[in-house]
């Protein structure tokens, strides 16, 4: 226990040290302000300043320490109180101190852009932030979500009176995260925008500034999060989609009870995320044949869903491609040239001042639209595939003898340990042994 406290103190001290240094560094700028005086008021930046590589590696070291500690607390110590303490520390460091940047969720886009843009190299710290939680998940489950992710921590802290979400609604809402991930990949791959960062609902709280609409969105998530456990993590988080799939393969996982389950159902009531699975009853023979027919039907439906999804999303490419600045500019120039609008914008005036040919701009915009059309097929097929697999998973049954935490949905928060009577017996036994 004392050793654990020492580790936490070390992590917090490291946090403060790196933060102080980064604050002193942020005074210098890329270009110094001009010497002539005007009435122009320079806006203060709303995004964190870039840091020296060394301090980015300190962030990575803190991430590794936090992931290791979280895994230890969840799987070995099984201590909800310490997990909660680490959650608060992570929120302070990765959230309020580092202002929510770099984060593994947004790092998805950097990784994608690095694949599709020949001139972009992903910073090493960003790559580490993307990869490390995934590696930890492959071995220890979603311990990143448990106590390291600042977005999850924020929602965990406001959880007041959780209500259970019906399973059909839960399944349907989870598809949103796949759509969000697909869109984020599409926009990053085409160089349009970092969609996840732009619409991050909590980053405005971390930076105590930002777009009003995003602040309202964040407030809505927190308000819903008072009654529905971690709504962003469950239904929107694109990184959660990847973690969910990888945690199915994890070597170690959360076990509710330290030994035998007495089926008291207390864990089921304690989980605010609906991640506890009940023991299964014997499967009646007639139901088996009916479910088998349904499974075959759904497997035949899978390619249809993928094609339909691809076709719909590809057809929406004129709308989605407007996310790219070049397409927006080309549309504006077209409107101005055809007389649909009479005034000009700063962007269109600046374009004309460059002397570039309008036909070149239209050609460039056409190429980008083509990429969106092609990408739309992949995005739609991906969403169709996930929807089909979700339907198929409802037709499959796994034999469970005890109450179990679902590998994919469990965020390893440790609430179920706290409620398990067998866990209390174990703790009492440990205490007696120590005495």
């Amino acid at each position, binding site marked *: 226990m004392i050793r654990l406290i020492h580790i936490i103190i070390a992590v917090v001290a490291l946090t403060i040290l790196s933060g102080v240094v980064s604050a002193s560094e942020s005074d210098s700028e890329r*270009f110094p302000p001009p010497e002539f005086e005007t009435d122009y008021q320079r806006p203060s930046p709303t995004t964190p300043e870039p840091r020296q590589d060394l301090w980015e590696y300190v962030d990575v070291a803190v991430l590794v320490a936090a992931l290791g500690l979280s895994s230890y607390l969840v799987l070995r110590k099984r201590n909800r109180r310490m997990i909660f303490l680490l959650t608060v520390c992570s929120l302070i460091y990765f959230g309020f101190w580092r202002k929510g940047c770099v984060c593994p969720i947004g790092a998805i886009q950097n990784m994608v852009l690095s694949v599709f843009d020949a001139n972009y*190299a992903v910073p090493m710290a960003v790559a580490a932030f993307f990869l490390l939680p995934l*590696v930890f998940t*492959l071995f220890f489950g979603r311990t990143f979500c448990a106590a390291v992710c600042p977005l999850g921590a924020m929602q965990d802290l406001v959880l007041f009176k959780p209500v259970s979400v019906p399973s059909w609604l839960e399944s349907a809402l989870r598809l949103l995260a796949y759509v969000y991930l697909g869109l984020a990949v599409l926009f990053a791959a085409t160089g349009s925008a970092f969609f996840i960062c732009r619409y991050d609902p909590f980053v405005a709280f971390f930076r105590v500034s930002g777009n009003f609409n995003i602040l309202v969105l964040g407030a809505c998530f927190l308000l819903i999060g008072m009654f529905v456990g971690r709504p962003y993590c469950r239904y929107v988080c694109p990184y959660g989609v990847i973690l969910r799939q*990888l945690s199915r393969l994890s070597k170690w996982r959360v076990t509710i009870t330290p030994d035998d389950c007495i089926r008291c159902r207390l864990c089921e009531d304690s989980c605010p995320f609906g991640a506890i699975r009940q023991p299964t009853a014997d499967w009646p023979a007639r139901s088996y044949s009916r479910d088998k027919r349904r499974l075959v039907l759904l497997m035949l439906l899978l390619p249809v869903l993928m094609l339909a999804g691809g076709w719909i999303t590809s057809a929406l490419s004129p709308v989605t491609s407007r996310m790219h600045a070049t397409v927006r500019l080309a549309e504006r120039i077209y409107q101005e040239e055809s007389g649909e609008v009479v005034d000009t914008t700063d962007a269109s005036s600046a374009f004309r001042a460059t002397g570039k040919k309008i036909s070149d701009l239209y050609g460039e915009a056409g190429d980008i639209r083509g990429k969106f059309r092609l990408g739309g097929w992949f995005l739609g097929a991906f969403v169709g595939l996930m929807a089909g697999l979700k339907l198929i998973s409802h037709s499959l049954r796994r034999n469970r003898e005890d109450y179990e935490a679902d590998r994919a949905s469990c965020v390893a928060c440790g609430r179920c340990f706290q409620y398990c009577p067998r866990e209390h017996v174990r703790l009492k036994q440990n205490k007696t042994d120590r005495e």
Partner: protein
Amino acid sequence: MMQNRRQLFASTLRYAALGLLAVVGGSAVAKRRKLVRQGKCVSGGVCTRCDLRDECDLPEACETRRGPGE
């Protein structure tokens, strides 16, 4: 038996995923090195905090080294 088969399958997939992540990480490092070798900017044009600023020959880095008004 069933459990063992499932475990073997999960274990195979786990290490395959780990290998994939290693490839992703390795290719990110390789691409960065390649761009540096080609003399391309890997800091998004932000020179003041770049470790390669002193050796970099790109115009922005030279300008940053010279300082304002020189």
